[in-house]
């Protein structure tokens, strides 16, 4: 379970104060797949970093599975927005996936098994011996996902993971993530700026306003659990839901653009 209560974050440094998150409050129950959408620069990455214990909040409380976050919580994995840079270029794919397990003190045989399973799940069994920089962007992303899967987290945070991959790869990865979530039963917070993606993936979509960030809309996605790129996306309910999210985002954007110079 994730709890965010009155989260407020100000970056203060080099003579510049930036309010990245205004006032955020929401709760994600255990096992839910929640998507967070919001315009670029509204503080999505900041929110994730605070949840991951990588960044202290300026005020407000954040807790993961009942424990207030002061350091990176146990059983929490992150797939970073800069996934390519989050892989160790000096380690081969398998070693990248196994490193967190090694740090957890897991034996060689078990590490191997988990890494094999995770790499198979993302369809990368045949490149376990490659270096990350020998792979395409989409494949690197899948390595980062495999690393998170092998870690067997209870909570998984993903930051715009598919922003930089081509459409076909993206569709495949979306289905992969749905499958992983269903299999592992993790609590999943998925950040994206793509409305379609949010509606297609999540059980719930949390729409953030532009800065100063608040929750503009919190929408339950009542699409069937088995989703399919073709049928789900052409479902009337899907169109309706994405229309709602889209309208909401247009509305929260409007006040900001009025004051902005043309």
């Amino acid at each position, binding site marked *: 379970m994730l709890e965010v209560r009155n989260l407020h974050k100000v970056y203060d440094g080099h003579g510049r104060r930036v309010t990245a998150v205004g006032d955020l409050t929401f709760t994600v129950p255990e096992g839910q797949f929640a998507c967070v959408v919001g315009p670029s620069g509204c503080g999505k990455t900041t929110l994730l*970093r605070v949840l*991951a*214990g*990588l960044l202290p909040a300026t005020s407000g409380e954040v807790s993961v599975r009942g424990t207030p976050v002061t350091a*990176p919580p*146990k059983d*929490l*994995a*992150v797939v*970073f927005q*800069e996934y390519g*840079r*989050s892989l*160790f*270029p*000096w*380690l081969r794919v398998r070693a990248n996936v196994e*490193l*967190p397990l*090694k*740090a*957890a003190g897991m034996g060689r045989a078990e590490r191997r098994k988990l890494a094999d399973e995770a790499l198979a799940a993302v369809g990368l069994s045949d490149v376990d011996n490659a*270096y990350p*920089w*020998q792979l395409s962007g989409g494949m690197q992303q899948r390595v980062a996902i495999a*690393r998170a899967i092998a*870690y067997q987290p209870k909570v998984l945070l993903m930051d715009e993971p598919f922003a930089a991959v081509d459409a076909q790869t993206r569709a495949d990865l979306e289905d992969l993530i749905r499958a992983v979530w269903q299999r592992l039963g993790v609590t999943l917070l998925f950040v994206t700026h793509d409305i379609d993606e949010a509606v297609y993936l999540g059980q719930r979509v949390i729409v953030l306003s532009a800065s100063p960030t608040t929750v503009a809309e919190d929408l339950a996605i009542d699409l069937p659990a088995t989703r399919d790129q073709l049928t789900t996306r052409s479902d009337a309910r899907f169109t309706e839901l994405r229309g709602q999210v889209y309208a909401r985002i247009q509305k929260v954007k409007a006040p900001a653009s009025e004051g902005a110079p043309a």
Partner: protein
Amino acid sequence: MRFLLRALLAVGLPVVLVAAWWFGSAGSQDFYWPSLSTIVDAFGRTWTGAMFTEQVFPSLWRLLVGYLLAVVVGVALGVLIGTFRSVRSLLEPVLEFLRAFPPPVLVPAAILLSGIGDRTKILVIVFGCVWPVLLNTIEGVRGRDEVLSDTCRTYRVTGLLRLRHLVLRAASPQIVTGARQALPLAIILMVISEMMAANEGLGFTVLQFQRGFQIPEMWSGVLLLGVIGIVLSLLFRVAERSLLGWYHGQRAGQREW
């Protein structure tokens, strides 16, 4: 074909220069500038058997020990300074001061303090070679990609595992750069320390030859030093290739895009 061309280019100029020296100096009557063939002849006579084990080997040994110590000390200090801001502010002024000394200046003082044994010479080599390693290591540690640090924090990769797989590896391109800069320094300091304070060693022997007017032998010693330099830098290249394979591969890949 391209490989052959590159090999030719790489070897071409040295071959031309050596040939020019060989033929230009052939039949030289100048006492101080003997012909290359005389020098090569002296080389074969001089640097074999006991001369090698008693004069060359101790020099190489000190060179190796001093150099490796400098790398270890430089990397260890560099990681500490690069990681902890407090250590940095504590040590930086002292280090700036120490770095200002040209290492040969320390030789006379070092002799007074610890004699003309191996220890003095190794210390001089360490003192001269530690700086490029240290400064480059600090830079490498501080310039590490934050996303990787965050990754380690998130996945709880800590302690020795973090040191080995994150801190040292991320800084390794800079560490290698520093170590490469230190290598010729080590040779220079080995020779200088032996010229100033020794009763054996390569530098000492070359100086003895010069004082004894054994000119071809002296030149052959200079030649030997050059060969040592080349061999060491080739060995360095081999080590670098296996250590930084990922780095060069990654950069080559980026250039293709």
